[in-house]
């Protein structure tokens, strides 16, 4: 009984410690997003107006580096830090409606706010605190999707 009670806080703190690397990686993500200015409404407008190569260069080089990394991980059977296999679950295509229709709706919001979900939070950190309202609206949007999900075509 006593050992059980004593062991519980240890596993809790162990779990909390496991989150630190994700927090640090998220911090680096916020720095990269703001320093590269892909969080900027100006950059997103410039992209959708085809008036600069900048965003296309960012996205294309990100995809190439991520793609090569995935191939290398698969080729050399790289494991996670704790030694388990790395498995990337495939995305079910289905009829595909959710992807192009959901994507189009997100695209409208991307051009309106100039930010996708990650940049929204990075912008709040950088001092654009009015984006808290956008985050609240985005949560409402996600909630509405969850509510109407059974009736939407996927």
């Amino acid at each position, binding site marked *: 009984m006593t050992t059980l009670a004593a062991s519980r806080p240890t596993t809790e703190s162990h779990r909390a410690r496991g989150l630190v690397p994700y927090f640090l990686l998220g911090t680096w993500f*916020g720095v990269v997003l703001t320093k590269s200015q892909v969080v900027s409404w100006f950059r997103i407008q410039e992209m959708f107006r085809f008036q600069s190569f900048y965003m296309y260069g960012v996205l294309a080089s990100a995809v190439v580096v*991520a793609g090569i990394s995935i191939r290398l991980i698969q080729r050399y059977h790289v494991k996670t830090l704790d030694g388990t296999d790395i498995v990337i679950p495939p995305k079910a295509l289905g009829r595909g409606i959710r*992807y192009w*229709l959901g994507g189009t709706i997100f695209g409208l919001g991307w051009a309106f706010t100039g930010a996708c979900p990650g940049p929204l939070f990075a*912008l709040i950190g950088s001092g654009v605190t009015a984006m808290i309202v956008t985050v609240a609206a985005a949560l409402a949007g996600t*909630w509405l999707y969850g509510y109407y999900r059974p009736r939407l075509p996927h």
Partner: protein
Amino acid sequence: MVAFLSQPWPWYVAGPLLGLFVPALLILGNRQFGFSSNLRHLCAALAPGEVAFFKYDWKQSGVWNLAFLAGTVVGGFIGGRLLGDPAVPISARAHATLGALGIHDFSSLVPRELFSWSALATLRGSVLTITGGLFVGFGTAYAGGCTSGHGIAGLANLERASALAVLGFFAGGLIATHLLLPVLLR
């Protein structure tokens, strides 16, 4: 080094650094890079209601994601506030086009005349901030991913679903930019 840190980073630095989040998360714990799942986790944590989509153990599957999110806010403070110049060196053509649409303040990461607490009192500011957020939240949940999950991780893994989603991102963005914004900003 200090000079480099205080300047906006070029695309060929930013893009590869963003791409490396995919292997970093896989190696750290077999996690898939994708930010918008946080919105679902937050709904599940704050207001699951009676909605099946939010009835899952978010503490089990989503806590690492929320820790990443907390870091992103801190990183935004470091990169956007502590390190250097927030003015964005967009092309002269983009500057001219946006100027013609009535944007005058190019001094920070976002135009403050559209995205600030005072701008929320204006019609165009509130429409962009609030309906924009609704579209982002609804669309990413519907599509099952955003720029990170579909645009980077999904395309890198040659997912047809992600290619469809990214075509959608651009269709929506082009419609909003070329058809809706000229009306809204007038």
